[in-house]
């Protein structure tokens, strides 16, 4: 474990703090997935070392501070959605939630458009990150900040 933490460039103090967080999660006795590298590690696992394209995802978020219990999120990926060229999966993350995973959408070309709208819970102001995977093996990533006036009433 310590080797993994130092590989991510954490100082000794950060590493101890991370271990303390793990301790709290275990002590709480709830089934919590603990990610050694946080949201960046979870997102990195999806990107998988590929170089993400920055321009292919439009992320629609409220312009005004939102109620964290239900924040509208609209994601549209630029793709012809043909049999040969389509979006296969769209991952949504909230990098400030304790568990950063929000949703994974899976598409077939029958969708016609890789575009979804949903409503998410955010415990605080943070970045929403969308990662799209394409049928040709490429990936795209977009990140946008959303301000929350009232935090989600439950710890997500």
């Amino acid at each position, binding site marked *: 474990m310590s080797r993994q933490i130092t590989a991510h460039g954490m100082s000794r103090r950060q590493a101890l703090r991370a271990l303390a967080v793990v301790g709290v999660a275990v002590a709480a006795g709830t089934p919590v997935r603990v990610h050694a590298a946080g949201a960046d590690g979870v997102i990195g696992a999806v990107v998988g070392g590929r170089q993400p394209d920055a321009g292919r995802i439009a992320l629609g978020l409220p312009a005004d501070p939102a109620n964290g219990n239900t924040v509208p999120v609209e994601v549209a990926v630029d793709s012809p959605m043909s049999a040969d060229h389509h979006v296969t999966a769209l991952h949504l993350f*909230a990098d400030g939630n304790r568990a950063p995973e929000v949703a994974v959408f899976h598409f077939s070309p*029958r969708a016609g458009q890789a575009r979804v709208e949903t409503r998410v819970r955010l415990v605080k102001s943070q970045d929403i990150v969308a990662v799209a995977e394409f049928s040709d093996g490429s990936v795209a990533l977009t990140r946008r900040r959303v301000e929350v006036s009232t935090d989600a009433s439950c710890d*997500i």
Partner: protein
Amino acid sequence: MADPTPRVKLPRSFAVGEVIEVKTMITHPMESGRRKDPEGNTIRRNIIHRFSATFNGAPVVAADWAPAIAANPFLAFHLKVDGPGELLMTWEDDSGQTYQTSRTLTPA
């Protein structure tokens, strides 16, 4: 809780080959598993963790959801209507219950 009830909104009319937006919502508490009852006991997680939509039996869109999806989960997705048929939507929660609704699509 009251039985989860799905709702679906479709465009009033559409043509063959048109990409339409399908708006869906299901009443469900999306209990996160992180809340406690007044006695301090953790309330068991029960979320809709899977949604799927098929048209004439073929997959269109599916979704895996985490507790960060808000209560009464709303999802708008798209479908290219290549002819008449049945759009079937299924929601599945942690208690093992599945909820289904379908709409017959008749393009103009």
